[in-house]
């Protein structure tokens, strides 16, 4: 009985913590949904390279806010920094291609759904390069992704 009483106060606290992470995740979904929609809206007039140029300027306030929050202190790992910068370069190339896709006047829903399939590449590369385990659920995901791309190309 005493054990139950001791555990009771932690229940609501855990719920509050859970709610916080959930709402952060919802903020992420809403922001990324808005990002994709505004990318399409802007791409109707603005060419892909200029869209990517402006997009980058839009990301600066968040990068600066994080830098200020950390008081300019960043880890001094050469590898980490190199991977981080390469991340940005490849993200930019991918973004450029996405703006080009939207600029073709292709269907916004189909473009967004196709480009969101990028975890299929990450999963395969993680298995091949990082030797991570390949779970059956991920194999099923790859099958669904392949079916989606085949349907879109019909």
């Amino acid at each position, binding site marked *: 009985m005493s054990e139950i009483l001791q555990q009771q106060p932690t229940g609501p606290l855990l719920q509050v913590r859970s709610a916080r992470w959930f709402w952060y995740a919802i903020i992420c979904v809403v922001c990324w949904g808005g990002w994709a929609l505004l990318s399409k809206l802007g791409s109707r007039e603005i060419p892909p390279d200029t869209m990517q140029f402006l997009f980058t300027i839009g990301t600066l306030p968040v990068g600066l806010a994080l*830098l200020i929050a950390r008081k300019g202190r960043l880890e001094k790992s050469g590898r980490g920094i190199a991977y981080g910068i390469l991340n940005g370069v490849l993200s930019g190339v*991918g973004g450029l*291609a996405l703006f080009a896709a939207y600029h073709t006047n292709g269907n*916004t829903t189909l473009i967004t759904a196709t480009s969101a399939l990028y975890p299929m590449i990450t999963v395969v590369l993680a298995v091949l390069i990082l030797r991570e385990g390949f779970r059956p659920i991920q194999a099923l995901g*790859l099958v669904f992704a392949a079916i989606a791309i085949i349907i879109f190309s019909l």
Partner: protein
Amino acid sequence: MHIPPWLLYSILTLIAWGVVGLLQKLSTNYISAESSLIWLVVGFLVLEPFFYRGPAIFHYSTINLSYALISGLLNAVGAWALFASLKSGGKASIVAPLTALYPVVVIALVPVLLHESVPPLQWAGVGCALIAVILLSA
């Protein structure tokens, strides 16, 4: 099989971002997620000279320029919120598939904002894509 240009570009995005996913795993092995986001923005900046088209930028309508700028801001805030969710106790196995569902927001708003429709067969493809994203991120 005719592959339309939008699909080719979308697949290029998919491949580039797929590699980014791997690099993200690698970078966070050495630095924090916040630092990784800061260096990601630096990576974006590396490309800026190649994309700058001079004062011609200001010839586009203000509203579309705003859309482009705000799209960058929303993307970065979304990335920050993802990190915040994970730091607040969200399990990656739940947060990753949940946040990968952002196309649902687009799918819900496109008919209203852009008056675009999707043919029935393509809807099946969209359904498969959403299922795939959830399974791959799980």
